[in-house]
């Protein structure tokens, strides 16, 4: 503890997430301990100070001891972070010792946009719904949009373990204990523990604590990317629960809610996290893959909506009734950075093949609608439907694990199986070169 401490013992007000008291010389965003619980200054008005208590205010009396620590939340960073599991405050939960290292304020400043480099390194995942249609690039930020019943954590773990990166940092917010153990076992089973760092808030922990998790994970990520020039992949799951925690705090502070009872600053709050994804001028990079759970596929809700405007695309998981598999929906999914690598780091025909295959899949959806409305299908419609089934099974399903070259060849095979070259609308030069006779 610091030599100079300011201690108060009278609270003026208490809500479920905040306490307020009269205090002097308090700095914005500094930490305090309220009846043994960690809290942070969120508002001062004259000498009236409002503190957000991370673990909730249950049991805090009006005569609680409040001790200001003079500093915003920090994390000690060093190589010792590798392979460790922490709670939202950065304390070990794996029984290991405290980490020694340089103490850094979390939620620090942004990278000067002029110092960034354009992302250009492909991150192959083996999943064609990603690599073929929505290619990932290092330095990108992209969430999975998924209903709660989709296996998003499994897909994310697969992607993380197949990606060629130096560190994987997991920020778990409101994870069920089972999911936490799932991640832990997957990482262990893959023998990847030495490159993993986890900051975990489970459903057993208070929700407001979650607000610390992304900043903790990203402070660690910045240390390895900036100081050690490493390629860091940050996994954040589930950002919807993070946003829920934001709305709890803003509500307790009597702020006027905007759409879907979310705080008006939701966009900026989420952007501050996602924009930490960066390709640095050195080799170092931070890539963020997140999960935003949806309510019944509704992407117009404020959380996925704001997320979509911030992130560089989204990967949409959906159960496909034709094949009975979970697929990456080619219509709603998008990787905004894909053109930085498609045809540049991959084969020249990549983007045309991708567009043609999705367009034909869309035609199949139209045929399906016709079928549902009881109309006769044309020969073309029948071919589209047959193609759609193969396309979903051989390429869109999340259990596919092949190289991008194989994905392209598979697509050309499917084109030749069901269509004429003109029906694909692909540039003649590529038809001449790649059409399967």
């Amino acid at each position, binding site marked *: 503890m610091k030599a100079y401490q300011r201690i108060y013992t009278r609270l003026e007000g208490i809500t479920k997430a905040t306490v307020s008291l009269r205090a002097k010389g308090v700095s914005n965003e*500094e930490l305090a301990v309220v009846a043994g619980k960690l809290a942070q200054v969120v508002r001062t008005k*004259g000498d009236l100070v409002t503190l957000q208590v991370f673990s909730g205010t249950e049991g805090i009396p009006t005569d609680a001891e409040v001790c200001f620590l003079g500093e915003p939340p920090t994390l000690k960073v060093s190589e010792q972070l590798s392979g460790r599991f922490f709670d939202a405050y950065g304390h070990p939960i794996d029984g290991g010792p405290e980490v020694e290292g340089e103490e850094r304020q979390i939620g620090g400043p942004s990278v000067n946009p002029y110092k960034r480099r*354009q992302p250009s390194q492909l991150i192959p995942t083996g999943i064609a719904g990603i690599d073929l249609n929505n290619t990932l690039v290092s330095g*990108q930020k992209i969430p999975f949009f998924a209903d709660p019943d989709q296996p998003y954590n499994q897909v994310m773990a697969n992607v993380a373990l197949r990606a060629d990166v130096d560190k994987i940092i997991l920020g778990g917010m409101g994870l069920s204990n089972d999911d936490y153990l799932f991640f832990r076992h997957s990482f262990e089973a893959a023998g990847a523990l030495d490159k993993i760092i986890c900051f975990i808030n489970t459903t057993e922990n208070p929700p407001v604590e979650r607000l610390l998790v992304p900043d903790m994970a990203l402070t660690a990520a910045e240390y390895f990317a900036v100081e050690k020039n490493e390629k860091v992949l940050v996994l954040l799951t589930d950002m919807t629960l993070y946003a829920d925690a934001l709305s709890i705090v803003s509500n307790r502070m009597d702020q006027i809610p905007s759409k879907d009872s979310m705080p008006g600053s939701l966009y900026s709050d989420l952007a501050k996290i996602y924009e930490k994804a960066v390709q640095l001028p050195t080799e170092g990079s931070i890539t963020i893959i997140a999960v935003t759970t949806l309510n019944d596929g509704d992407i*117009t809700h404020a959380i996925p909506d704001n997320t979509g405007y911030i992130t560089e695309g989204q990967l949409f998981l959906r159960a496909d009734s034709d094949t009975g598999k979970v697929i990456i929906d080619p219509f709603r999914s998008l990787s905004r*950075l894909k053109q930085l690598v498609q045809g540049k780091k991959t084969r020249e025909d990549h983007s045309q093949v991708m567009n043609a295959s999705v367009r034909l899949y869309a035609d199949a959806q139209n045929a399906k*609608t016709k079928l549902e409305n009881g109309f006769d299908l044309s020969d073309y419609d029948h071919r589209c439907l047959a193609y759609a089934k193969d396309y979903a099974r051989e390429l869109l399903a999340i259990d596919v694990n092949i190289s991008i070259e194989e994905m392209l060849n598979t697509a050309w095979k499917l084109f030749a199986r069901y269509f004429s070259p003109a029906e694909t609308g692909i540039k003649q030069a590529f038809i001449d070169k790649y059409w399967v006779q």
Partner: protein
Amino acid sequence: MKTKGIVTGIVSNLVTVKVDGPVAENEICYIDLQGVKMMAEVIKVNGDIASVQVFESTRGLKGGDTVEFEGRMLEVQLGPGLLSSVYDGLQNNLATMTEVFLQRGEYTDPLDREKKWDFTPLAQAGDKVIAADWLGEVKEGWLPHKIMVPFSFKGEYTVKSVKEAGQYTVDEVIAVLINEEGEEIKVTMVQKWPVKVAVKGYKEKPRPSRVMETGVRVIDTLNPIAEGGTGFIPGPFGCGKTVLQHAIAKQGDADVIVMAACGERANEVVEIFTEFPELIDPHTGRHLMERTTIICNTSNMPVAAREASVYTAMTICEYYRAMGLKCLLLADSTSRWAQALREMSNRMEELPGADAFPVDLSAIISNFYARAGMVVLNNGQTGAVTFIGTVSPAGGNLKEPVTESTKKAARCFYALEQGRADQKRYPAVGPLESYSKYLDYPEIVEYLDETVEKGWVDKVLHAKNLIRRGKEASEQINILGDDGVPMSYHVNFWKSELIDYVILQQDAFDAIDALCPMERQRFMLDLVLELCDKDYEFEDYEKCRDFFKNLINELRQMNYSAWESEQFWAYNESVKKMIA
């Protein structure tokens, strides 16, 4: 004597300050945080309490910290060297900052003070001049950059002396003027202007009468934007807003382009300053970056500076307009700016309007759009600021305050549609919902008659009508089934698909198709309309579909072929044969 104050309250970036003297609305002040001076702007005054929005993170700020007021509003410096620069929303030069991370309170000079510019005088001793009159000229890249009587000068002045041709830095005195009171006033190449005030300094603002070419068919052909016009692009995420805006920035026929990245992704800005220095301006053959200024307040940069960024960008455009140049301002996205206003309004506990936005949102937006326009300068030459903003409607729903307010202010509407994006029909500009009010301007109709071809606007309206007819036919086919409608419905549907695939859709990532000059657009529309105006007989709808699919394929290959190349004419021949 500067007004001083002390901090009394902090909520995020809204700080209340008790002041000891006069303060003005929008006045700039600096808050001292342990030696770091953080810039802030007054947004409300109540008694001796001023509410200021801080352009930095307020972490660590304490009640009792001191504040000093500057007696001026937020200003930008205008002078040679603005082009090819990358600024933040407060016009700090991001390129000259040394650290990888943005440091709080680090403000860098927007202009190069050492560089010498080749100056040529344009005025002579004895000339009578007023604000915005040209005194001299320097070459900024290839552009003639006029050194003007500062916009803030009131009344008439007599030129006492102008420096002879030679090399000078921006801070050297290049002219001495005498005002009506007989006082001498020195003028350098740099002037300052408060960003929230529109630059006047022109004779009149007539209606726009020329079209600004963008090389994007769905804009130039179907919904052209005028030079000095205004337009906006609303669309849900993932509909290609950014790609479309970058295409306009790369290809737009303008002398100066200012891009305001307002609360958007940093990687998109990186894309601009990685690619633009390599790309060539199709109109001048010069590097694109030479005509471009980037104002960049990405989504993770301080929220309050977001608002400043669009004003800074507009002021720079107005400055170049006063030199008789054609400027294009692209702001992505104005919704983020509106959200920044909402955040502040919310923290000040103002009574909210719709969706918690401030009630004067609509007025703020229309005032801003009104700063665009074509102007006739004092010397009779013309300049223009064309403004295209993007809007990011929450949930993709266009019935929200920012879209609705912008619709009232902007003359062109380019609605991006989720459905078209899902089908990868890019650019996903909806052909029927989108409009350009300039097509109703007799000046524009006449201009297109002369520059494109006689009766052009009628052709465009005809094409739109064919699309509408096709849509109706497609709805009927969906209800009644392929066999349930007469053949003419199928023909109408496929004619609209023909226009859609060949005119509306355009491959922004194909070296040839990305940029379609007006002459080529004329050729393609004429060709497509010729095909559409023919009567067709088919045995059954499958034959109809196959015929049009083949036709579309040939025409798309034509779009991918170099203009008037052998290949191009070969496809043209083959199309002609198909309809013979």
